[in-house]
């Protein structure tokens, strides 16, 4: 009798604790740039991630558990990231971790994840796992299995399709993780196509005047100028190109910042002729029907919170990152990190950005970075960008809407 009572009590306790665990929120922890150089994108990403959380919780959560975020501002400071994630896991005891935005803050988090064998979904890092080769790392940015190469592929494909073919190229970027990786990718294409590098330098991110750099580039008379830059230097390089009167056949490539409203409205007609990467353009909206839902809801909230009112760049992918995670947790019925990683590796997911599948190294199985050229921009109003008409999609071929207009300087006349 006594044994049966004890057994009944034990079974009851197990059932109760399982119920309690199931009712405990599913805590997802991350750092995000809410201040600092990348805060504009960080806040936009956070809005999209919160949208996902709210959508999921409205349907009862995941495995009966409400999703709860625990996040801290990484201030776009890579040095703060390891301690931040250690606190999330050791003190806040989160169940799942995801990354903040950008190569600079993803890379320092990876060793921490490796130590703790955590499954790590990441948001827009360009090959931060290249040296670590961590098997539980996943990247939602569609750069392809060789990220640096995939990131720069379209620029050089478009360039080499010009007649006559270009012969020389200048490459320049900020002294930071992302630009370094992008320039490494550019060098692969340059070598493949037999182009001659006539300028290959980096600059400190806090440079004030970029005209000396652009002038030095002009002195080498390059056919192509590939730039890998962050938002403030993107603005600086484009302004400098205008002031110096840069003459080249194609200019742009990997400039972060041109995807969102603040820089587009600031630079306005200075963008005419610039060739750059994009994740989405209204001109190809029919190819991305699933994005309308997320962008519409995002834009309502973004205006109130003073972040990028367009939301074409990061928010859809931030939402998709959480969709992948949510589907994996549901399918594996828990938060076992090894099972999550195994499931994500072998599955093709349906998300707001379309079908997402991962290569062995955790990057996208294939690249889907658009290369576009700006044109016909007359003023600095946001209305210029709300619909199609200012962007020609140059590649990949399945998204192409037109050909490149070269040389670059003729676009300003």
């Amino acid at each position, binding site marked *: 009798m006594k044994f049966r009572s004890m057994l009944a009590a034990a079974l009851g306790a197990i059932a109760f604790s399982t119920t309690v665990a199931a009712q405990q929120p599913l805590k997802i922890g991350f750092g995000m740039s809410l201040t600092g150089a990348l805060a504009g994108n960080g806040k936009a990403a956070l809005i999209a991630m919160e949208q996902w959380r709210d959508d999921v919780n409205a349907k009862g959560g995941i495995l009966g558990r409400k999703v709860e975020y625990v996040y801290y501002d990484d201030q776009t400071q890579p040095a703060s990231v390891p301690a931040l994630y250690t606190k999330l896991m050791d003190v806040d005891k989160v169940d799942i971790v995801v990354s903040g935005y950008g190569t600079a803050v993803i890379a320092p988090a990876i060793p921490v994840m490796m130590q703790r064998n955590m499954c790590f979904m990441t948001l827009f890092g360009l090959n931060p796992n290249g040296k670590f080769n961590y098997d539980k790392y996943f990247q939602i940015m569609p750069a392809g299995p060789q990220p640096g190469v995939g990131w720069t592929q379209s620029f050089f494909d478009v360039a080499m399709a010009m007649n006559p073919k270009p012969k020389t190229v200048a490459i320049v970027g900020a002294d930071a993780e992302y630009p370094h990786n992008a320039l490494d990718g550019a060098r692969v294409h340059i070598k493949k196509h037999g182009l001659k590098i006539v300028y290959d330098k980096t600059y400190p991110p806090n440079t*004030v005047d970029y*005209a*000396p750099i652009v*002038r030095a580039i002009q002195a080498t008379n390059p056919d192509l100028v590939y730039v890998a830059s962050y938002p403030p230097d993107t603005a600086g390089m484009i302004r400098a190109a205008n*002031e110096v009167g840069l003459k080249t056949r194609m200019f742009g490539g990997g400039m972060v910042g041109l995807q*969102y409203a603040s820089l587009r409205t600031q630079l306005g007609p200075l963008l005419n002729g610039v060739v750059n990467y994009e994740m989405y353009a209204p001109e190809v909206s029919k190819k991305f029907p699933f994005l309308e839902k997320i962008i519409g809801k995002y834009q309502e909230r973004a205006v109130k*919170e*003073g972040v990028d009112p367009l939301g074409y760049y990061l928010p859809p992918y931030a939402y998709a990152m959480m969709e992948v995670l949510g589907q994996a947790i549901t399918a594996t019925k828990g938060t076992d990190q090894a099972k999550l990683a195994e499931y994500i590796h072998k599955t093709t997911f349906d998300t707001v950005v379309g079908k997402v599948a991962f290569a062995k190294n955790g990057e996208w199985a294939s690249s889907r970075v658009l290369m576009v050229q700006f044109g016909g921009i007359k003023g600095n109003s946001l209305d210029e960008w709300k619909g199609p008409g200012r962007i020609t999609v140059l590649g990949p071929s399945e998204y192409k809407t037109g050909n490149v207009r070269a040389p670059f300087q003729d676009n300003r006349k």
Partner: protein
Amino acid sequence: MEAASIELFVNAIVAGLLLGGFYAAVSVGISISFGMLDVVNIAHPAFIILGSYIAYTVNARFGFDPILTSVVLSPLFFALGLLLYRIYYLCFEKRGQESLRGLAFFFGVLFITEVTLVLIFGVDYVQARTAYTDATERIAGIDFPLRLVVPFFVSLAMVIGLQFFLTRTFFGRAVLAVAQDQLALRLMGVDPVRVKGLAFALSIATAGVAGALLIVILPVQPSIGREYIGLVFAVCVLGGMGSIWGTLVGALVLGTAESFTATFFGPSWAPAVSFGLLLATLAFRPAGLFGR
């Protein structure tokens, strides 16, 4: 080919001088507060950014020129500087705790200002729009981008005006005197605390104007001020503590070194060359270029 090299050389010098003019504007306030008053106002760049955002707001809402706006609103920054110094003096300087605790105070002011700007204006980059933002004059192959030329002349006017004020007016001489010997000044019947307060307020007023120059030159977000902390103190030290002319010359030297290095040797080397020049100057002239 040779003409192109000469053109490149001259453009590098001109770009450096224009950049140096801007550096002088952001540093001249530190030359007063740190160089003359011995107040380590590490929050000076935050007030520059505050000036940027106020100039931007007026420019975006009413279309007024940001630099003119900053001049008109400089009394507000002056008043803010008075208030800030009063707090600093009562809490730290009066008790002899200005060195470490005073520094911590200004760090706090820096972060509070930054966070306040984030809460009010958000985190996106903003830049003022003027008729001259995107305009460039090209004379004999030399580029004069007006977004740098206009701030250069405003900065020059501000520096010359300050120098004139400090050397030719009674109050200005009182500021120079308080930097030399506060006790002697008190014996002359002048309250050094009042003089320091007014001088500190003047330094904050210059920060407001410098902020307007900054937002004409490049996009700004609330935490960008931290990137100028090293620069403003370096210019002040290179020029000679408390020397307004020294600040101008030091800024022009650093700006030209940066531009020249970026053009001919690679922009990555620019900070190393600039600060190497600073160290070399201090090795031979520890008081700075114009210091005593």
